[in-house]
Structure formats: C-alpha cells, structure tokens
C-alpha cells in the first residue's frame, strides 16, 4: 500500500475491502475472452471514444492535450486507451491486475505495432515512482473496481504537480436504480445514497466501488486535487445499442446519467 498506508491515512478503512483485488481478478479472468473479442475494434479506432455510448473525446473535451505527456492507465484492461494516447504522442504505461487482459493487450500491441509498458499491478499499490506522470486515466477500470480511498491517493502520488486525473465511473443515480449486474436500471431508487462505497452485486462475483458526489469531491480535495469538471454523459438520440445487459438503454440514458467523468488536477 506504500506511503498512504504507512502514514496512516487508510488504516481506518474497513478490512472487508482486503479481498476485492483477488475477487476482481477472478471475475475479469472470466470476462477476458469477451473483451479480447472487442479489443481489435477498440484498438483500431482513430479517435478515442468514451464509455458504452462511444461519445468522442473531441465532443467531451475531458482530456488535456496529451502530446509529450507521461500517462498511466489504471486498470487498463486491453489497453485501447493507452494505445490511443500513444498515437497522440503520449508515453503511456498501462497497469492491470488481470494477466488474461494484459495478454490481450500485448497481442494487440504486436498486431498494431505499438509498444509501451504493461504492468501487472493494482491501482491501489502501483510499483512506480512518485511524481512520474502527467495524466492518470481510468475508464471502467480502477475507477470502478478499485477502492477509491486507496487508488485516488496512489494517483496523487504518481502525478507530478499540475498533473490530471481523469476517470469515468457509472452514473451515481444509475447505481442507485440498479437491482443487480445483469439487469438494466429502472426508475426506482433501490438503495440509499448515504453510505455508498462498496458494492457486491448478485450474479457475477466482482466487487465494485461507487461514491456519492460529495464524497468524491472531498476525497479528491483531501488528496491535493482541484476538481475541474464532472462530465455527465448523455448519449446522442440515435446510435448502435451497447452489449451490456446491466446498463440502461438509450432512452433511460438520455434522461439520467449512466456515465460520469471526473476531471481533477493536482495542485502545484
């Protein structure tokens, strides 16, 4: 856990979170073949698109100009974001806890002729030096599957002063309206907002983490970040459906946020 645990900042977090890394590695080993199938298309995209609605970065403007930046992708999976960052002139490093996902990423690197470091590690304990990156990014990665009370301090440690953390999470309201991982949200609030943190869904065995808005703001601020933006993604009126049964259809997502991108900057 490195410096953050050593100085006591995390010692009061519940012990139950200790096993989620193993649980999530197991779950993602199971999901990996499906994402291996999706990887060539994601790697082949010229423009980076966010989330399941494929909203282009050029429309959202979540990222700074990444040319020349050292970037770390936390929970990179098949590393298609790092591939895009690399093509835009960044020097990416991808980290992930699941060897099967990293295998796909390496195969894609060979196929697309791109080469950058891929590390098997948890975003909660990254074996890389302090202040060595300009951008920490996560899309449906550590942002959802790692404990924010551990990975946000790690991101702060890894970033240089002025560096950005940009991460996409599930919509907060959507999480409150979701019964389990395999069913899309309805309109009913099925669980309380106060106390949101660790989520264990019925069905598949992964453990997710979701915080309320105020908790995200305080966590970022306490770790030296200035909160710059919260981009709540509304998909365009028409387009291809996504393939994830637990996520809402376009009609729901046009009314309430299904995906949210936090943008924060480490104070100089």
């Amino acid at each position, binding site marked *: 856990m490195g410096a953050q645990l050593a100085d006591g900042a995390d010692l009061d977090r519940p012990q139950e979170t200790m096993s989620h890394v193993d649980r999530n590695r197991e779950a993602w080993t199971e999901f990996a073949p499906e994402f291996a199938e999706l990887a060539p298309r994601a790697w082949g995209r010229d423009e980076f698109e966010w989330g399941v609605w494929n909203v282009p970065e050029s429309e959202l403007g979540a990222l700074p100009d990444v040319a020349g930046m050292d970037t770390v992708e936390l929970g990179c999976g098949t590393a298609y974001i790092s591939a895009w960052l690399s093509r835009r002139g960044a020097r990416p490093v991808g980290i992930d806890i699941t060897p099967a996902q990293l295998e796909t990423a390496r195969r894609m690197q060979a196929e697309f002729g791109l080469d950058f470091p891929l590390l098997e590690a948890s975003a909660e304990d990254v074996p890389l030096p302090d202040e060595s990156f300009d951008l920490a990014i996560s899309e449906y990665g550590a942002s959802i599957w790692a404990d924010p009370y551990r990975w946000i301090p790690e991101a702060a440690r890894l970033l240089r002063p002025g560096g950005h953390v940009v991460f996409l999470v599930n919509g907060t*309201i959507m999480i*409150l*309206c979701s019964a389990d991982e395999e069913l899309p949200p309805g*309109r*009913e*609030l*099925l669980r*309380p*907002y*106060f106390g949101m943190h660790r989520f264990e869904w019925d069905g598949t065995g992964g453990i997710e983490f979701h915080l*309320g*808005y*105020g908790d995200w*703001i*305080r966590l970022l*601020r306490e770790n030296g970040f*200035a*909160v*710059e*933006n*919260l*981009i*709540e993604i*509304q998909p365009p009126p028409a387009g291809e459906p996504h393939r994830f049964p637990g996520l809402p259809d376009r009609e729901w997502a*046009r*009314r*309430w*946020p299904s995906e*949210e991108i936090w943008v924060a900057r480490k104070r100089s």
Partner: protein
Amino acid sequence: MSDFEQNRAFWDRHSDEYQQTHREHIGRSEPRWGMWQLPESELKVLGDVAGKDILELGCGAAQWSILLAGLGARPVGVDNSERQLEHARDALAAAGLDFPLVHAPAETVPLPDASFDIVFADHGANRFADPYAWVPEAARLLRPGGLLAFSGSTPFEVMCWNEPADRMEPELHLDYFGMHRIEDSDGPVQFELPYGEWIRLFRANGFELEDLREIQPPPRAESTYRTAEETEWARNWPMEQIWIVRKKR
C-alpha cells in the same frame, strides 16, 4: 412577467404566512442551516465570521444576518421581496441592530465589486434566482479568496417529486439532463442544476470547489418545512445540500 417579478410577487404575498409558520423553527439563538436547522457550530461552513463583510442573498427576515452581526460580522441583507424586508427591519429594530438591507433580486445586486469576504444563502435567493445570473453576481461581489456558500435543494429532490401525488417518492419522475428552471403552477419559479453544471458554472466564474455537504438529517429530526415522511426520505437520499466554493486569489 419575468421570473424575478413573479417570485417577488409570490414572496410579497406569502411573507407574513411564511414568517408566522417558521418563526420559532428558524428564530434560534445560534446560526443554523436549512430545513432541519443543523447548527453552524457543527457544520462549520462559514468559519470565523468576526470582522468580515458578509452578504446574505435572500435574507428574508434576516434571522441569519442578525446572529452573524452578534458574532462580530458586518452583514448586509439582500431580498427580492419588500414585505420580507419589512419583517427584517422589525427584527433589526427589536435586536437594536442597524445594518444595510437592500431590496434587489440576486441577479442584479446594486453593490460595488469585491466588497465582501463571504456571500451566502440558506435556502435563499439561490433557490429562486437563475444560477447563470446570480453566481456571476456573487463572484463580482466577493473579494479574491472570498467564500461563497449556499444551502438549497438537490437534483434528487427535483427528480423524485411526484407532483400529481404531491409527495416525495423513491422514484425518478423528472429528467436529470436539462434540469434548470422548475415551474410550479401556483408557486414561485425555482432553480436547480445537475452536479456537473454547478461545477462548470463555479469554475467559469473563477471559483475553486471546496465541498459539497449533502445533509442527512438525524433520525426523527423536526422541521416546519418537511413532514415526517419527507424527513424519512431524506435519511436515504439527499434532499438538501450546501455548496462551498472559494473565489480564486
């Protein structure tokens, strides 16, 4: 009729009844926030106010500003309703205090730039004025490093209000995207924004985000604003929140 005229007429009409209904609940001896009157001494939103120039947006009968004056602040109260300010003048006289009360909507406050250390509202003008107009005004009125803090409604409250049934429900009724101006057939025009919209509005006006306090009332907390059922709803989902932002130096 413009929104500020409609809301002025509403508050002129309802001021007497409002002050009568809530007089005891909000007329406390120490500053308290919101529908459940949680003490500032616990929430610590404004911090030390002694010697500070403080503007209250939507001061009503000036309950807050009177208490802040007692703590050594130099308050100014602004309200869009002349009838509310008449109540405030009576209260100032009763307290033996004299500080400025200004009759104006929060969108256009006739006071000089950079003249306050704190601008705040407790379910005040922030609920009844357009944020795209009053947040820039607050930025203009604050000195560099000054604090803006305001309590109000939440997107959850707006979305989960079942208007035909006239009650809060654990269910989404109104859309989140596009939330801004909320019209009620016989009430005032109210305003609420999505979280991301608030954040961008603060940043665009030179504010740094400090906190978002989402108020969970204590069990069985009393309120003259809310029924017991509504307070129970608010134990699960945010019905009241306080934004705290600071103007960059």
